[in-house]
């Protein structure tokens, strides 16, 4: 029985040490693991803004404008505390609309406008049929992603 006990404790201790090591590494690299930055982080000037980064948040309702050339759009990305103006020229994903989650990759220009080279749509974990979404909205119980469907 003794060698089995010993092996059992060796495995348990090994896993514990490994877990602790992994937790420390992940905590140390947290800044590099996050996929995008929030408008609040941009506002607090904690980012090296001369570098490219990803900006994530919601497309602010009422901020979406199409430029005269028909392919450039401007909008504001908000986390409901701060907002950053974004300009983008190109195709938008299907889910892109006001009120929707969005991740923009690009760089801040001299005027503080985020010049995006890629726009990705982010959606939340809610799934339901259209009729249910309509009914919930009408009842005022829920204000879902994407203002107009």
């Amino acid at each position, binding site marked *: 029985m003794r060698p*089995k006990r010993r*092996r*059992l404790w060796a*495995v348990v201790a*090994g*896993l514990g040490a*490994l*877990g602790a090591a*992994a937790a420390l590494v*992940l905590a140390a690299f*947290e800044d590099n*693991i*996050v*996929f*995008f930055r*929030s408008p609040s982080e941009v506002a607090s000037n904690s980012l090296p803004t001369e570098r490219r980064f990803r900006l*994530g948040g919601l497309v602010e309702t009422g901020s979406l404008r199409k430029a005269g050339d028909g392919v450039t759009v401007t909008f504001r990305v908000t986390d409901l505390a701060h907002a950053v103006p974004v300009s983008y020229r190109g*195709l*938008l*994903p*299907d*889910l*892109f609309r006001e009120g929707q989650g969005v*991740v923009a990759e690009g760089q801040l220009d001299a005027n503080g406008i985020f010049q995006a080279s*890629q*726009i*990705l*749509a*982010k*959606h*939340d*974990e*809610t*799934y*339901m*049929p*259209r*009729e*249910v*979404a*309509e009914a919930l909205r009408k009842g005022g119980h829920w204000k*879902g*992603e*994407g203002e107009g*469907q």
Partner: protein
Amino acid sequence: MHRFANPARFARLSARALPWAWAVAGLALGSGLVGGLLLAPADYQQGDSVRIMFVHVPSAWMAMFVYAFMAAASAVGLIWRHALADIAAKAAAPLGAGFTFAALATGSLWGQPMWGTWWVWDARLTSVLVLFFLYLGYIALWQAIEDPGKAARAAAILALVGVVNLPIIKFSVDWWNTLHQPASVLRLAGPTIHSSMLWPLLLMAVGFKAYFVAVLLLRMHAELNWRRIRALRLTAGESTDSSHGFATLPAERASL
């Protein structure tokens, strides 16, 4: 536990369980596919693209479940030296790799229309890719070491080291911001999927699991038979001349 570790008893019991596993897999996958692809409604914002979920989500669940199973079997094999546990872990690995690949591939096909990209290096996608490589490394390690006992021990240690990745995958969407959505079903506050879409998803999950059980049992049988052949060849090789008598046995490599 020990009673089931007897190979002869395992062969008997698993032969009886196998048709049931196939039946459950067939029924659940059949009804789940009809439910998911035909009966379930389109999503309010994703439309019909949401139907990829009925393959993607069960694949991803199985990718993690099979790894947990493999690691648990490896631990039992390592600590209590049950050959059957080693065999179970070895037999599960290619299945887990297959489920992981399916999750990655269907996720990519889903990401392109919804997110606007096939792939991003966010924490969820990257950690699942690491899981896929862990499976491949585990399989390669078994192939690289000839002695089954030594191979089992080395592979078991690799499997246990990789366990640290499982909570990272599960909680990556909560610990860091990612492009991937947070959990919709396995969350504390209850599912955020409407019941009309949830039941086909759960049926598919049952089907995937039953399929895994069925193929796992078959693969374990094959491995046990191969080991029996190997043992027979070794004893025969000791008593007779090695130039005859073995040509009728299947080649070792082919039966792997």
